[in-house]
């Protein structure tokens, strides 16, 4: 290995142009998740964010010190601005989802979401942390390059052709790395716990009443089966952090990840976390495979598209796949 080859590998990994479909799809799911998060927060918005709520701004600042991005510090804590932040964030998340003024709205969503989190960090969970971190890199991504109002407008004005331009994937790579780190660090920390090694960890998790959602069938609570589940969890988390980078292993690992997160969604009440993780996993799907899936869908789903439009899109997808 030489320094030159290292630089070449870096440039290839971060800058070699590719179709932006994975990050575009991620944008749509990201927007939908932020919208859902806001809907879930709305009934208790006043409890969490009024100056005389469960945590005052002064208390929050005394616990979490340091300069932070916080629009409330600029606009104040009045009822008007508290509600304005909610509605602006909601509207921006919607526009981000449909890809209208995508870049600007990704910035607004990130700034306001980070501000809302920083105002009351005591109610945020790992899902919120992922939304903040991936939202940060999403601002730099070509997230409106396809499946967006922006693209539709660009095509209508003749600024873009039928083909979606290729883009450097560096922002998508950072989202992938962020996700990979989540799994690797979780695996690393768990591997230092005795109960994860002796296979009893999930026994304790299953009996935490505050997390229970649907009843877990008795078979899965058998001590031997619990041990297998515990070690499988470790193995899948390691795979999602490390093995996912190998193309040959990626789809089996993604499938294992989906099964893990759907199982957790069934058994545990950690709203949105599993969906945020699954949405972020989309960034690991090869663009060519997404294009293939799109072509397959377009041929089967009775969208109101003319036959030539379907043929054109399918031809575009096929051309991308062959590259």
């Amino acid at each position: 290995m030489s320094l030159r080859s290292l630089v070449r590998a870096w440039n290839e990994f971060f800058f070699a142009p590719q179709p932006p479909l994975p990050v575009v799809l991620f944008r749509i799911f990201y927007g939908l998740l932020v919208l859902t998060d806001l809907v879930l927060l709305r009934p208790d918005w006043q409890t969490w964010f009024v100056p005389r709520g469960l945590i005052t701004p002064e208390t929050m600042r005394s616990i979490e010190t340091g300069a932070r991005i916080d629009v409330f510090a600029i606009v104040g804590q009045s009822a008007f601005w508290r509600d304005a932040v909610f509605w602006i964030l909601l509207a921006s998340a919607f526009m981000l989802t449909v890809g209208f003024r995508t870049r600007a709205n990704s910035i607004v969503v990130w700034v306001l979401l980070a501000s809302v989190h920083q105002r009351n960090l005591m109610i945020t969970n790992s899902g919120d942390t992922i939304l903040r971190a991936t939202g940060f890199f999403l601002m730099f991504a070509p997230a409106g390059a396809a499946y967006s109002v922006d693209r539709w407008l660009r095509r209508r004005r003749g600024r873009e052709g039928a083909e979606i331009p290729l883009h450097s994937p560096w922002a998508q790579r950072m989202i992938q790395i962020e996700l990979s780190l989540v799994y690797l660090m979780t695996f690393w920390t768990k591997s230092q716990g005795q109960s994860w090694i002796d296979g009893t960890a999930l026994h304790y998790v299953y009996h935490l009443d505050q997390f229970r959602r649907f009843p877990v069938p008795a078979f899965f609570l058998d001590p031997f089966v619990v041990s297998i589940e515990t070690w499988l969890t470790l193995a899948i988390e390691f795979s999602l952090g490390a093995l996912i980078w190998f193309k040959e292993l990626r789809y089996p690992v993604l499938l294992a990840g989906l099964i893990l997160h759907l199982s957790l969604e069934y058994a545990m009440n950690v709203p949105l976390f599993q969906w945020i993780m699954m949405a972020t996993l989309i960034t690991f799907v090869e663009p060519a495979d997404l294009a293939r899936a799109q072509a397959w869908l377009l041929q089967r789903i009775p969208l109101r598209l003319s036959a030539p439009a379907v043929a054109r899109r399918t031809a575009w997808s096929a051309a991308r796949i062959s590259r």
Partner: protein
Amino acid sequence: MPQSKPRKNPDRPSFAARAARAVISAFLAFNLFAIVSWCVPLESPLVQACRNEVRPYMLWTGLFQNWDMFAPEPSKLNSYIGAQIAFRDGHTALWSFPRMENLGLVDKYFKERYRRYANNGLRLDNNARLWPDAARYIARLHDSPGNPPVAVNLIRYWSVVPPPTSTGAYQPAPWQQYIFFRYQVAPGDLR
């Protein structure tokens, strides 16, 4: 008419493109360094020094993160936080933050942040600065003009999850409780 000189290697990116790539690479390298040094579960002096360097950036951007879900050990406690409210006429009432195990499916989605706040924040001694705000908030929830609350005691309730048995039979441990904060309500707290 002067002709522009043909570039030596048309495949080579322009100077502006190379400069942009260099700036982006520096940004990526810094972020990789900052994120990894922040979340790596090592406590060496070197890692600590790196964290101190990137701390202002991580806090400001909200990129701070640590990944220790159910790790290194999952919690072995079922717990919730409640309060005992004393009123001016001498009677007392018990109240608790929403308990997920008592809620329906939809409410669990909406109210989960109360669990997060109460069990992962308010319950812990190192978050004692949260306690007066919580006591005042509970007092305001129970305010009535003729009979205002005069004191709020915050209570931890917990039940240990016993280790697994060879048969898989599970018997939860009894609940215990402890008043961890006593607050005398001042008239101004209720406004």
